[in-house]
């Protein structure tokens, strides 16, 4: 099995690239997606700070981002990527489309989670003299936390799947590895190995997410 010695370091490298792309994109997605989700929630008609026009605009942008197939988005945002990273090739460049693809996805999940917090709890906080930002900080986010963690887990899993596609267009990572070594060289065993590896990563993530969410859920 001489070729395993050749393939093995590449597999390690590809795994590292995937974790890097997904990790950084996940952090950025949370940084942008959660506030966007909050904004979507509170600006809705009848919500905490109704801004119907802003709400409709944000909703439109989010829907646009979510309805676009990721592979199309990948090419569409290439100029943006070049503007930010300087190139459209490589793992770092892939982080830009990954983040842009995942932010609307997470934002919608955050919105759904926050909307499920009982209106009565918000009213109770208002009756105690809470400001709107206090309501978001001390009621909406803590009460929705288990559901927010579940949503973030789903988003990160989606990022892993996106990252395989980004890999195919020069981002590196496990997707790229599976295509170059498995598919193009007719090595089904390598393709399967990659699939198993991805499955392990996804499972570990899901388990960690579920565990964390459950620990915080007190209902």
């Amino acid at each position: 099995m001489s070729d395993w010695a050749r393939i093995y370091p590449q597999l390690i490298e590809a795994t590292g690239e995937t974790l890097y792309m997904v990790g950084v994109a996940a952090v950025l997605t949370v940084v942008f997606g959660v506030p966007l989700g909050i904004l979507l929630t509170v600006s809705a008609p009848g919500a905490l700070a109704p801004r119907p026009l802003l709400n409709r605009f944000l909703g439109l942008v989010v829907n646009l981002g979510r309805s676009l197939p990721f592979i199309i988005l990948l090419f569409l945002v290439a100029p943006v990527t070049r503007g930010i990273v300087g190139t459209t090739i490589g793992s770092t460049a892939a982080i830009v489309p990954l983040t842009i693809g995942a932010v609307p996805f997470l934002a919608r999940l955050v919105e759904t989670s926050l909307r499920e917090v009982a209106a009565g709890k918000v009213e109770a906080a208002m009756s105690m003299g809470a400001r709107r930002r206090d309501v978001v900080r001390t009621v909406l986010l803590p009460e929705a936390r288990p559901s927010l963690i579940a949503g973030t887990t789903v988003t990160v899993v989606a990022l892993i799947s996106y990252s395989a596609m980004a890999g195919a267009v020069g981002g590196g990572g496990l997707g790229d590895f599976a295509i170059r070594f498995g598919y193009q060289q007719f090595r089904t065993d390598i393709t399967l190995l990659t699939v198993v590896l991805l499955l392990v990563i996804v499972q570990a993530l899901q388990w960690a997410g579920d565990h964390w969410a459950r620990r915080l859920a007190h209902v």
Partner: protein
Amino acid sequence: MIELTDVRKVFPARRRAGEVVAVDGVSLRVAAGEFAGVVGPSGSGKSTLVRLVNLLERPTSGSVTVDGRVLTDLPDDRVREARRSIGMVFQHFELLDSRTAAGNVEHPLELAGVGRAERRRRAAELLDLVGLGERAEARPAQLSGGQKQRVAIARALAGRPRVLLCDEATSALDQASTASVLELLRRVRSELGLTVLLITHEMAVVKAVCDSAVLLERGRVVDGGRLSEVLTRGHSPLADALLPAPVADAGAGHDGVLLRVTVTDRTPETVVLQTLVGRLELAVEVAGGSVETVAGGRYGRLLLRVTGDLDRLDGALRGLRDDGVLIEAVPRDANPVAATGVDR
């Protein structure tokens, strides 16, 4: 302490429904230290009315004054400040599941910027006050309905309010929990000198705790007053709601005369019986009714059937009425239920 003057709340029309007048020109005055009730059927505007007191709903017109401050004249940020001295308790408790009992009690203190050590101390003190000192670290999910409402009451008292609003505070509770929560409310009212405004659809709750009450129907106050005064009226919408007129079969086949008597602590039924049985030597049968303790006094409505020599009855009734007893003969063919005009 609480004064609403000609308050109206109109919810604007939505897609299919027209505009809704939830509260229609209500004036209401609750004195300091009073335990006041607002009763009415569902949809009568009670819940909107209580939200107008702390401006969770801004009135469309009219003014709201609490503890000397005209809230309706204040800008939003000052209203938020004022709310800190108005506690509120809800039907479904509205505790945060992400916090412990103590954490929930600390919440309003946190919002008011009280330091951590002081918050801790105050939460422990308040949980002791409501009898849950041992459950400080329990999550709402681990508490019974009655216990949750006790935590909610402790939370409402955290900011040392002078006014406590209760929106159907016992409606989600079973009978035993209802009784203990009401007992707690009365106790904190007298210990802390609070003014309480309680919204409910249950007459039993009003009878158990309130000093005064108003009856709300379709957004309007149709009756009200101190219970000790309301219950000494022969008839009024609120009196009839609190003490339903007794029902008796007044139809044919029965001899004698039906008498309707309103029992109060100043005019107990013994006075009537003394006259009827002792002086007139009539046979008296209780055909219906009840007597109970309300607002610390005995009140009730009785329907008596008297038989025997009725010649001197009219004169005796006049004599009783002169002494302040509410007593009247029910016309023979009248149905005493229909006569009251209220079915409740």
